[in-house]
């Protein structure tokens, strides 16, 4: 079970006064009816729920500023929320917190193809950013699986990736600037053209700080010309080790595919039962996609074919049409849904060096047997970002705890292999307690110093990222007035 801090009783006692104060500065944006605030009690980590004190849905940066200023003045904790798709509990509130949701702030502010940028309000969904610019031949590269629903604000908070980030990078590599509102209501613009601000890279530290340093209301994003075309191949192997070795060889050959996805036997079986994409019966498969004009695609695939054939695959399947391309991707894209049909699951996203793939997969198999819980593996092989899916039955008492314990062991394994706890989903509440597996006290202290500067009172989404004992101590000291903004 993941612990949450106790709510501030003084704040709870002052609920009516707080809501009245919020209504003063955001007249028709405050939700306080318990039947309605329940909607905001959790995100995609749905095993953990807690209704907030109130919810505010501002329409402008100025309104966000006024609401934060009010909360700051009254000592009320705040939890920002994009679309609530976080798999790590990033937008889960406590009972004393006000959720500030960005859903009403979804406008496109500027499209500048000549500068290859677009400026949007951060409540806008990821995919709809691409939709806004694709008519002019551009797209926004970071493409998390949840892109139909997730908000740019959440992408920035979690530094989201996606299948295509092997070539194009993650959110932080495609973010040029932000308008940020600090916990005390101060508004500041960070970043610059080419993503370069005049001094320290504050933009770079905001991205991935899980909404703990400020609320980003506007973002300037890099957009790229749409490639002429793309084509995937599917390569089937009789072992995960061989598939892993093939990934390394492809990277070594100098080709840079736009995506390399891996699925193991259990995942393939579940996906076939669910979507009937026609995947081969095998221990492991890779889906490799390359981009360019048709002759360029042919040239790249020729190189990939030569490398793959040297590993004697069960099958090397090239797409000959749009429909075949779709079918090659179909299984991978419905993998999570397919696993969900088998039962409840926890999805992790520990990342490891690509060279450690075979060893880590083997060790995950050992752990799975030890705990008696099935684990299926699907992931972005090109960058080592794994997604072990731990199947369990939520109706069996104790199984969630067992699944979480297995998950923690898998993440420890990732750290030991030279990787990290999370490659995409962020720490949220889910991996707080594992932070000490990866970082020393000095390392965590250095990160917390940054929050001390941006939010000296530790009011903004403070129960996330850091082990609770550390954030609780910070909050305690903040209340004693021991921390000051310079």
């Amino acid at each position, binding site marked *: 079970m993941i612990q949450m801090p106790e709510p501030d009783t003084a704040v709870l006692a002052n609920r009516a006064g707080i809501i009245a104060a919020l209504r003063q500065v955001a007249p028709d944006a405050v939700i306080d009816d318990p039947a309605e605030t329940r909607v905001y009690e959790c995100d995609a980590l749905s095993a953990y729920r807690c209704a907030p004190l109130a919810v505010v849905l501002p329409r402008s940066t100025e309104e966000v500023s006024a609401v934060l200023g009010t909360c700051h003045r009254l000592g009320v904790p705040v939890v920002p929320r994009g679309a609530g798709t976080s798999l790590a509990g990033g937008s889960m509130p406590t009972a004393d917190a006000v959720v500030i949701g960005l859903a009403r702030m979804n406008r496109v502010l500027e499209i500048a193809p*000549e500068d290859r*940028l677009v400026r949007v309000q951060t409540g806008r969904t990821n995919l709809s950013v691409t939709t806004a610019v694709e008519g002019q*031949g551009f797209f926004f590269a970071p493409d998390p699986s949840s892109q139909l629903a997730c908000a740019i604000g959440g992408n920035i908070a979690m*530094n989201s990736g996606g299948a295509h*980030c092997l070539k194009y990078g993650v959110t*932080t*590599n495609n973010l040029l600037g932000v308008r940020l509102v600090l916990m005390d209501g101060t*508004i500041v*613009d960070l970043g610059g*053209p*080419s993503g*370069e601000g*005049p*001094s*320290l*890279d*504050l*933009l*770079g*530290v905001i*991205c*991935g*700080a899980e909404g703990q340093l400020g609320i980003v209301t506007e973002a300037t994003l890099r957009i790229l*010309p749409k*490639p*002429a075309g793309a084509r995937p191949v599917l390569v089937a192997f009789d072992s995960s080790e061989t598939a892993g070795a093939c990934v390394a*060889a492809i*990277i070594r*050959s100098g*080709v840079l595919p736009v995506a390399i996805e891996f699925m193991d036997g259990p995942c393939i079986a579940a996906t076939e039962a669910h979507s009937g994409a026609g995947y081969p019966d095998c221990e492991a498969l890779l889906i490799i996609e390359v981009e*360019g*004009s048709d002759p*360029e695609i042919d040239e790249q695939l020729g190189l990939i074919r030569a490398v793959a054939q040297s590993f004697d695959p069960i099958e090397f399947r090239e797409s000959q049409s749009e429909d075949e391309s779709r079918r090659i991707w179909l299984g991978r894209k419905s993998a999570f849904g397919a696993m969900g049909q088998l039962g409840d699951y926890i999805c992790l996203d520990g990342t490891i*060096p*690509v*060279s450690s793939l075979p060893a880590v997969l083997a060790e995950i198999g050992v752990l799975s047997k030890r705990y008696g819980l099935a684990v299926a593996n699907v992931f*972005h092989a090109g*960058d*080592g*970002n794994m997604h072990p899916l731990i199947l369990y039955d939520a109706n069996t008492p104790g199984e969630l705890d067992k699944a979480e314990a297995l998950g923690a062991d898998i993440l420890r394994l990732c750290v030991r292999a*030279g*990787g*990290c706890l999370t490659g*995409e989903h962020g*720490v949220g509440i889910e991996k707080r307690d594992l*932070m000490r597996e990866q970082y*020393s006290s*000095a*390392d965590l202290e*250095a*990160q917390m*110093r*940054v*929050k*001390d*500067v*941006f939010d000296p009172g530790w009011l903004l989404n403070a129960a996330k*990222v*850091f082990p609770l004992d550390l954030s609780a101590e910070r909050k305690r000291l903040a209340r004693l007035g021991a921390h000051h*903004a310079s």
Partner: protein
Amino acid sequence: MRPESEAELAALIRQAERPLSITGGATRHHPGEGHGARLDMTGLQGVTLFEPAALTLVVRAGTSLASVEKMLADEGQMLGFEPACHPGSTIGGVFATNSSGPRRIQLGAARDALLGVRLVDGNGEIISNGGRVMKNVTGYDLVKLMAGSRGRLGALTELSLRTAPVPPASCTLALPALDAIGAIAALTTALGSPLDVSGAGWLPGSGALLRIEGLSGSVQTRTAELTRLLSGFCEVHVLDSDPWQQLRNGPQEGEGDLWRIVCRPSEAPALLAALPAPEMMDWGGGLILLRLPAGELPELPKFWGHARRISGAAPAILPAPDPVTSRLEAGLRQRFDPRGIFAGAE
């Protein structure tokens, strides 16, 4: 002072009583930098890990940039972001200054290739952030904060970075008839195409310069297509020489102060109209380098970005930094370096 280990460095910083300048090869100082007692980082040398198949290099900060580039080249790899390289330059200095050349437009800047850092802060504490993997959202990204921090928050000791394969083929096109202002439109057209241009700059005499890299067949097709696309501007030549070394290393010695402007390409023409002819442009017109008489300040129209004096006597930046950003930065410096040991950095 030339420590040869992280522990020795940490002890030196803990005992320091006067401002220090963290120095590699001293090849990238801006005006006002490098005035403290020299803390020579070149004693921290050597490669910790190199895995070409994972595009990963872990290297100590005092290692010479030249030796890193040679080692990578021997394995058919490179630093994709093309940092400026001068005699004595260290890999630590590359990331401390976020030195990024023409291929930034395609593969990102130095900070985008940096996966992990170890450093010693002003308290003498050894701090580590990030790791060896590209996908890493575990806690705050202090790697980005340290990149480009120019020695003001800590002394980088070890860097984990992502390498890139050297493309098998390369071709450069030049449009010599275009002056700086005229070049912007041509560079913009090229960068707005799906031809995956990996260099878009301008040099006096050479005109607009565009680079296409990749597999050989692909380079041929794309170069032909790009030539067709640009032929409406003026004559397009294939260039035999390599202008990209000059573009990555920046202008040579000259009279007056060097100024560096970062802007939106669409705002470059208005800036250029207000300035003397530039020494060079890069990043599709998003980077302008020019000289002004010593001590002079340019009068610039309003634009998104900044202009900084990078050679000469006194530091200068326009527009002046906003007070909130200054306050946040001062707060970070105060916490990473409470005694002002790294004040010699500026």
